[in-house]
Every structure is written in structure tokens, then in C-alpha cells.
């Protein structure tokens, strides 16, 4: 097991190297560079632009730029500096990543906290109005794009004043005590987490329902019932534990996807996360910031997959990694 984990961790290095190379190549192929952002400013002269290009190292051939980047990365663990913010890339990304993880975890709570109980409910009441109602509800959730549901919820918040209209903290956040701060954060978190968590809900719920139905048809469940166990014990203690296995794998995968998948919600809800930083960096061609954030997101995704595989081994004793 330990050698397996170590091997998987070592595989991350060439994988990230490949990702960085591909991202760098794509950035080079994209037209223009960071200095295009000053294009509509009539006070900047041609000579100034050339001097700026030199100082950012953008006048050098791409392989020299990439070589220097790798050198700094491996020798000093230095991800470079953002052109626009004159700040180390790692500092900019750290904060965004934490905020994104917070949103992703809250969304995961929404997704799984609803998907498992609702899936179970639908399974034990198969073909009843509950089951059908949940299916319709899930399909609606799946088919409304995040942009629309996000804006609709924000409109509701703006018109009723029940919840804040986007952002992560209110302006007076610092004047609040710890409890107040937590409530303030949760209030801001509620709507975006609902939107991000809702999209995968339908799928997970249907999976839970299907798995449980499969298990409920097995012989050992019939045996348990025949022994005279209560329906609650049969479902929750005997059937559910076996039905939940495939969902554990999915959990690991979605963890990675959540980090990269919340860009639109981050923009609509003014959530200060990694997605927005990356988007902004791509639009302004702030190249080392783009590279850093792509690598950060990839790292989380790879780690999520690893966690998924390990969780599976923990949950199912039949699976072992040599």
C-alpha cells in the first residue's frame, strides 16, 4: 500500500511537467502578450513597449523563457512573479485556492448531504410519487445552467434582502465576533454552494437510488428480512453499506472537478477564488500566473483521484494495491 502511494506521488512530477509544457506552449501560440493590455492607452510609446517587453523577458525565445521558469521552479520552488501585480504567483494563488476549496467543500456537503438521503428515499419508495417527484426535481436541477440559477438566486436575494448579493464577506466583517464572522461567511456561502452543489446532485441521487435497488434485490437482503430484522436495519445497516461503494470513488473524482468547475459561479457571485484569478490571468496573458494556477488545479485534481482510489481500498476490503 505504502509503495503504491509513493509510486503514485512520484508519477505526479512528470505529469505536472507535461501539463506545464502544454500550457506554456498554448500560451505562446495565443496571439499577443501581456503588454497588449496597454494597447488602447495613447500615452505609451513604441520605445516604452519594447523596454517593458525586455524587462519582462518577453523578448527572449520561448524555450529560454520556459527553461528559466523550470530552473526557478526546481531549484528554488519559485513559481515566478505576476506581471500585473508584481507579486509572487504562489502568494496570489494560495488565497484563491483556499477560498475555492471552501466553496467546493460546502458544495460537496450540499451535493452529498442531499444526494444520499434522497437517493435512499427514492429507492425504498420506488415508483411512488416521491420517487417520481425527486426525478423531476433532479432533472430540473441538472438542466438549468449555473449562470441562470445563480442570477435567479441573486435576484431573489436582492429583492427579499434575505441573503447577501454575492461576495464572501460583508464590509463590516472585521467588526464582528467569531460567531458573527462564521454566520456572515455561511450567509455568503449559502447561495453559491447551492448552485455549485446542485448540478451534480441529480446524477449522484440517481446513482445512489440505482445502487441501493440493485443491492436490495440480492439474496442476503431477503435473508435479513426473513430473519425478521426491521426494515430500517435492513436498509441502513445491511444494504446501504454495500450500495455506497461506487459513490466513494465518485466522491474523490468530483473533489478535483469541483476546484476547476466553479469558475462561472465564482464570477457571478463575486467569490474570490482560483477560477477568477485564472480567468483574469488568461485574459491579460499574465503567463506565470496562468501556469501556476493551471498546475495548482491539476495538482488538486490528481490528488483527488488518488484519494478516490485509496478510499475505495479502505471501503472495500476486496480491493488492494500492491
Amino acid at each position, binding site marked *: 500500500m505504502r509503495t503504491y502511494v509513493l509510486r503514485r506521488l512520484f508519477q505526479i512530477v512528470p505529469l505536472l511537467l507535461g501539463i506545464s509544457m502544454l500550457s506554456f506552449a498554448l500560451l505562446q501560440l*495565443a*496571439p*499577443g502578450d501581456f503588454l*497588449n*493590455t*496597454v*494597447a*488602447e*492607452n*495613447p*500615452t*505609451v*510609446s*513604441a520605445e*516604452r513597449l519594447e*523596454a517593458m517587453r525586455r*524587462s519582462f523577458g518577453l523578448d527572449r525565445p520561448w524555450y529560454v523563457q520556459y527553461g528559466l521558469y523550470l530552473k526557478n521552479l526546481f531549484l528554488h520552488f519559485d513559481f515566478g*512573479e505576476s506581471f*500585473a*501585480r*508584481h*507579486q509572487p504567483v504562489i502568494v*496570489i494563488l494560495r*488565497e*484563491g485556492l483556499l477560498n475555492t476549496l471552501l466553496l467546493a467543500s460546502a458544495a460537496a456537503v450540499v451535493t452529498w*448531504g442531499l444526494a444520499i*438521503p*434522497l437517493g*435512499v428515499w427514492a429507492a*425504498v419508495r420506488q415508483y411512488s410519487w416521491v420517487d417520481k417527484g425527486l426525478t423531476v426535481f433532479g432533472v430540473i436541477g441538472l438542466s438549468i445552467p449555473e449562470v441562470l440559477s445563480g*442570477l435567479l438566486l441573486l435576484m431573489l436575494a*436582492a*429583492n427579499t*434582502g*434575505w*441573503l*447577501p*448579493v*454575492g*461576495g*464572501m464577506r460583508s*464590509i463590516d466583517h*472585521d467588526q464582528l465576533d467569531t460567531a458573527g464572522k462564521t*454566520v*456572515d461567511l*455561511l*450567509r455568503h456561502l*449559502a447561495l453559491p454552494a447551492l448552485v455549485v452543489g446542485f448540478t451534480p446532485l441529480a446524477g449522484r441521487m440517481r446513482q445512489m437510488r440505482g445502487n441501493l435497488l440493485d443491492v436490495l434485490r440480492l439474496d442476503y437482503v431477503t435473508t435479513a428480512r426473513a430473519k425478521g430484522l426491521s*426494515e430500517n436495519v435492513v*436498509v*441502513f445497516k445491511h444494504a446501504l453499506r454495500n450500495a455506497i461503494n461506487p459513490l466513494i470513488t465518485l466522491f474523490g473524482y468530483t473533489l478535483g472537478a469541483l476546484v476547476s468547475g466553479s469558475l462561472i459561479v465564482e*464570477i*457571478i*457571485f*463575486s467569490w*474570490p*477564488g482560483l477560477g477568477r*484569478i485564472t480567468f*483574469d490571468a488568461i485574459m491579460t*496573458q499574465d503567463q506565470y500566473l496562468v501556469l501556476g494556477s493551471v498546475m495548482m488545479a491539476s495538482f488538486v485534481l490528481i490528488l483527488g483521484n488518488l484519494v478516490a482510489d485509496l478510499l475505495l481500498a479502505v471501503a472495500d476490503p476486496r480491493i488492494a494495491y500492491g
Partner: protein
Amino acid sequence: MSRGVWCLGVSAALLGAALVAAGCGGKPGYATSKYVDTHPLPQDTLTVDLPEIGTHGGRFVLAQTNPPRTFNSAMANESSSYDVTDGRLYATLVEFDNATETMRPQLAKRWEISPDGLVSTWHLRRGAAFTDGHPITSADVLFSFEIYMDDTLHVSMYDFFKPHGKKFKVSAPDSYTVVIESAGPYAMLVPVVGSVYIHPRHMLERAYRSGSFASAYNVGTPPESIVTSGPWKLKEYVANEKTVLTRNPYWCGVDARGQRLPYLDELVFMIVPDQNTAALKFEAGEVDALEDVKPENYQTYASGQEKGNFTLHELGPALNTNFLVFNLNRVRDGRSGKRIGSPHVGPVKYAWFNNRDFRKAISKAIDREAIIKSVYYGQGVKNWSTTTPGNKTWHTPDLVHYDYDLEGAKRLIAGLGWKDSNGDGVVEDTHGNPVRFNLKTNSSNRLRVESANFIKDDLAKLGIQVDATPLEFNSLITNLRTDFQFECVLLGLQSGTPPDPGMSQNVYRSSGITHYWNVRQPRPETAVEARLDALVEANVTALNPAERQRTWVEMQNLVNEESFLIWLPTLVYKVPIRNRFGNIHPSVIPHRIIWNIDKVFVKPKPARA
């Protein structure tokens, strides 16, 4: 069975209700602060005459699309940073007054310029201090000029500090006097001095000497260690969330009653990347003013004024411009594989584009009124120059221009000998080539994309076929500046601050990088280009305002007669601002809503009837 499920559902609902309940109350009100000014007023106060005398207290929240990228004014390169630094965190010797469009003393109490225009003497305000109480002296001014004129820092105004090719000579005979010597007469002297934001030498000199000035005062610097010279100081910055400014307790500005400015306790820039969300935040009262409202939404705001307790202020025509430009650039290096000196667009199209009557015909074929009506929702004006009607000082009302005149355009095309000989609806030139060209514009700008479609239809009436191609901004700029892969482009320019024609000299000089029709000519290629260069030079070196106006008018008329830039309408700006605030005076000139925010105050709560 489902007791567990129900419990979960009920607790989730309870949590939701608790979160909702926790937010009730605490709306932004008319709170007055307990601010007591403990510092003595400086010897030379900057006393301002205000329409309304205010009281201390309150907060103004402005939505910003992008976060500031630095708090170092000299290193800022984008408006999201300028809005916070320039005029807010940092002050200058002389400031531009958006209301009167004149230069007005700020940290300098007065200045004299020698009759020959070469030597100017600036007298600093005694007692003016940075946010840490350290006095602002001539040493800080010298230090700031050194930064702005540094060869390696790339301050965006750099070129303007070298009139006649030589840098200013700046010296300080004493702590409160600064002398600036220019190598020759320079019309831009006062505006350029007004672009030097005073940086604290006692805080930043070490970073400057050690070569780390560019990353000093970045957004990661703790706010308490950022010392600045303006009316405001940085209180808090939360990455991608908000920037909070509070008053500089040592600021030298006071009102007629001797109360120190700014009136407001806090100025908050809230980062809201999505415009729809910003609108909802304004509706919910979380934001006090919006910039960049789309013209299609003006009507909605206009009708919601009373209910939302705000006013939609009309600021007049924007200073930003829109125009068409044809590619007359020639190949200057061998890398493209084309012969040096040959036109980038090929000989056939170059012959069309280089023909003044062709460009004039294009200008006359464009129905600008229809564009204003449909694309701008009526919220636009015709404009014929880089100084739009929004620019009071430099706008020239009766310039040479070629407005919509389809018959005239047809006559010009017929005069070229072009006609549709095969009856396919497209005219052919004298060599039988069908007249068809590509028009690129940036896809992110709705006004430009839709205008391009109108122009396509207008030119079809002339028998000219246009292929409109919206492009992503970076690609467009690369085509325009680096590889010259364009035939015709619909683009715009921002205005410099102050909006002086000298700030746009790169547009008119043949060597300029924004001289888009034929950029960076090593030497003027035609007599017209040489004349333009001479006029720019005369305009920026003349000391007599009348002489500057004369050269400016001639310059604009020359470009318009040649139709190098085919002008399109400019948007009329409107911004909604809450009625709670006094001394609100928004303007189209940069920092539109907040240019005078140190004078803005929260009005006392109206008595209930």
C-alpha cells in the same frame, strides 16, 4: 424508515432560516461618525470652496469590475489601480479639476513659470503631511521625479518627461521649493507635473536604490506600512474582495468652515466581476454607485430612480472614441517573407485604401444617425476627433468631416471609375477586381460589433462588400500592431488625463504606435505625414494657448480631410448614484464618479413627515 432523512431535511431548513434571519437589520443608513480631528491644521491649508458644506462620517461603496493590481501609483498600469491610487491615495503638486477642466494647486500652493517657459518654480504647502504624519517636502518631490524619469521602471508617462529629447532638470533650493528646468518651451509642463504622484522618500528610497521599487507597495503589502500623500490612506485590502480607504488624518484639504477633508469615514471599492451582479448589488443597496452601465439599461435605471432613491446622472459624451482605420502599413523587416517596402495588404487593396476619395466615400456611406438610434439606443453623439464633445477645453465644434451622404459617396466611387459591370451587386475597380474587404473589431465590445454590422449594410449600398470579423481583443491588437494582418479595423482610443491633445500625440505623430493607419514610420512617408509631425511639435511646444488651439484645429482637420480615421459615434455616459450623498459631481473624465470623493459627504437624514 426515513426518520433520519426527515431529521436531515428539517435541520437543513432550520440552518437556512437561521442564516436568513441573521441578516435582517443593519442596512446602510445615515450614520454619522464620532470622528474627532485631533491633529492641528497645517500652516498652508488647501481651502476648497464647496457648493455644500458637509459633516464627517459615512461610507461610500463603489463596485469595481477588476481589483487593483498595485498600490504603487508610479507602477500602476490599469484603471482599476489608478482609481484607488491616483488622487485618492496619492496627491500631486497640481491637480486637474474635472469640473472646470483646469489645473489647480494641490500640494503646491502656487507656481511661477519664467517668460521663456523654460524654468518653473513650485512652492510647496507647508504642513502638508503623509498618512504617517511625516512632512511632505521638496526631497519627496525630487524622489518622485527621479522615479517617473527612471529609465528602467517603465512609468507609463515616461516619454512626457523628455521634451526636446532631454529630461527635465529638477532641483530643490530649499525644503519647500522645487525648480523644474525644461530644455525648451513645453506646453505640457503643468499637466505633466500634475501626473507625478508624490511618493514618500522616507519609506521607499531603500527599495528604489536596491532595485525593488516595482514590487514595493504591491497588493500583498500590509496596509499599515503603506504611507501615501493623498487625502486617503489604505485601511484594508482583501484580495479580489474589497479595498477600503479611510481618511488621511494629516491631509491639508479643508472646507470653508475649516473642517478637514475628506468628510467620509470610508471609501470602499467592492470587487464585483459580473455586471449583472453589480446591478443587483446596487438594487439591494449594498453598492452606492455604478460605473459602466450599458446604454440598453439606461431606461430601466431612469424609471427606477424614485423607488431606489438614486439619480441617473448624465455625464455627457464619453472621452473614448470609435473609428475605422484602413491599413496603409508597409513591410519594414524581412521576417514576414514579404518584400521590404511592399504594402501589407497587397498592391490591389493598397491602391484602394491609399486613395483619399475611397476613404471619404466610406465615411460618407456610413449612416451614423441610424447607428446611434439602434446600436446606442439613442445614447450617442457624432464625433470627429480624439477630443470628443465631452472635452470642454479642446473639443472643436466645426471640424472638416464627411457625414452620411450616400449620393456623394456614390459620386466619389463613380469618379474612381469603379462600377458594377457584371451586375452582381459588387463594384469592380478599374482592373476588374471586385471591391471587397475585411473589417475586424473586438468581439467583447457589443457597440463595436453591432456598428460593424451596420457599416457592412451601409457599404453594400455603395456596392462594396464588407466581411465583418469580430475578434478576441488580444488577437486584434496583435494584428494591428505586430503582424499587420488586417485590412480595416473598427477600434477606439482612451483619453489621457488630463484630456489634453498633447496626451494623444502618439496618434498623430508618424512615428507613433497608435498612428494606426501607418505606425512607426522611420521618417514621415508623405508630405501630409510631415505636416502632421510639424503640427504636433508646434502644439506641444507652443506656450500661447491660442497658438495651441490653432495647431490643434489644423491637425484634426488634416486627419479628417485625409479620412485616415473614419469617425464613428461616441457613447453618452450615464451613472446611477444614491441620493444620500452631497457634493456629488460625476464627470466623463477619468475617475468619473470619485474624482472629488474627498468632498463628498452623507447628507443628514431627512426628517420624516
